[in-house]
């Protein structure tokens, strides 16, 4: 009797895990819109900056860092100047209030000799503006936990959907033009079943968006 119950429990847990594992996959869509020729020399670098002008959100610096870090790795690796180092060195020209919003503002900015000199020192060929966020929606389910003299445990089920949507605009510092835009949209459903112990099956939405955006950006900047 006891053996049958144990087998049933194992089967239930295993099927829950498989269902969860399969269901928590992330789907990612990448759109590229090219407006100009690109290419980069080995002594040139790029900087990836997060947009922070919106009133209700700001692009997380961790995401910007993740994209930058991935672009410095593998085949066709690119020199990426760290965001904060660039903003501090360029202070006060790239603060949320003063940062150029359109590529034509860049022309005005580059007319400032101190800015042009610093940009040259860094060897910046492209400025990439990343704008977006990850939103969570459709939270459903509930989990209750209890502790007693004989031990404790949780029981229940929770699920939610994450949607990471990021735009990357590429500005060519030499031609002072916007040369293209890459949009990445990743969605995924996360699950949290709890049978005594909660088992989080988290969809790695932002990590996937970062990885796909970095790969696409690297190819775009290299001109391939």
């Amino acid at each position, binding site marked *: 009797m006891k053996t049958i119950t144990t087998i049933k429990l194992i089967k239930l847990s295993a099927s829950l895990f498989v269902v969860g594992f399969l269901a928590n996959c992330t789907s990612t869509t990448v759109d590229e819109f090219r407006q100009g020729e690109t290419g980069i020399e080995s002594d040139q670098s790029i900087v990836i900056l997060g947009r922070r002008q919106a009133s209700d959100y*700001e692009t997380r610096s961790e995401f910007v860092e993740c994209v930058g870090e991935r672009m410095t790795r593998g085949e066709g690796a690119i020199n990426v100047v760290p965001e904060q180092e660039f903003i501090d060195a360029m*202070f006060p020209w790239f603060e949320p*209030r003063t940062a150029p919003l359109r590529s034509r503002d860049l022309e005005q900015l580059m007319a400032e000799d101190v800015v042009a000199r610093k940009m040259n020192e860094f060897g910046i060929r492209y400025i990439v503006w990343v704008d977006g966020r990850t939103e969570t929606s459709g939270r459903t389910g509930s989990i209750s936990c209890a502790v007693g003299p004989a031990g404790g445990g949780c029981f229940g089920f929770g699920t939610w959907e994450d949607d990471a949507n990021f735009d990357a605009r590429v500005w060519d510092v030499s031609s002072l033009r916007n040369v293209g835009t890459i949009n990445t949209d990743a969605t995924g459903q996360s699950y949290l079943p709890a049978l005594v112990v909660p088992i989080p099956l988290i969809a790695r939405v932002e990590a996937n968006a970062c990885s796909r955006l970095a790969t696409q950006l690297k190819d775009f900047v290299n001109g391939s």
Partner: protein
Amino acid sequence: MKLVNATNKAILSRLTILFLTGLLTACGTSNVVIEGYFPTPNINKMPLSVAVYYDDSLREFAYMEYSETGREEINIESGLSHIQLFNAVLPAMFDQVVNVNSLEDAVSQNVDAVFAPAIEEFQLALPAKTKLDVYEVWIKYNMRLLTSEGDYIADWVLTSYGKTPTETFRSVEDGINEAAVVALRDLASSFSLSFAQIPEVRDWLSNL
């Protein structure tokens, strides 16, 4: 037996102290001293010698945030960080900058102008109250520019704003500090870039 009782008593009294301390800390006011890094602006210097005067209200500036029941909740001290900020910004804007302890001291310094900033208003928005996922700080300043004799050159209002998103393991104090540092950087950027465009300042500069 006596030894066991004594040990139990000691543990009990320690636990009571710990509980009471925790209770008092939970009910007390938390103090935030704004700390941050303020880079030197990358701008062209103006050929001016300026004396800067920080009055006591700026040096010791503190803002108290009250709870919805009127209890003192968070005390934010930002006087020192304002001075650090101006000390980083002003030498990048002007050829020569000297600190003076009073407006009268500026007369003997033979400078082109005396700069005296003042904080008029400080506002804080906490996620717990606004239900937004950001900490926000607004600061309103009154910037005064005087001749070394104390005559009026310009007097203008400048506002700065800073926000920072809430994060899972970030404390309220850290969130406030981050937002205040962004607001201070915002002040530095708008002050350094708009200084020469203030109509009274522009007129004064053209007559120098």
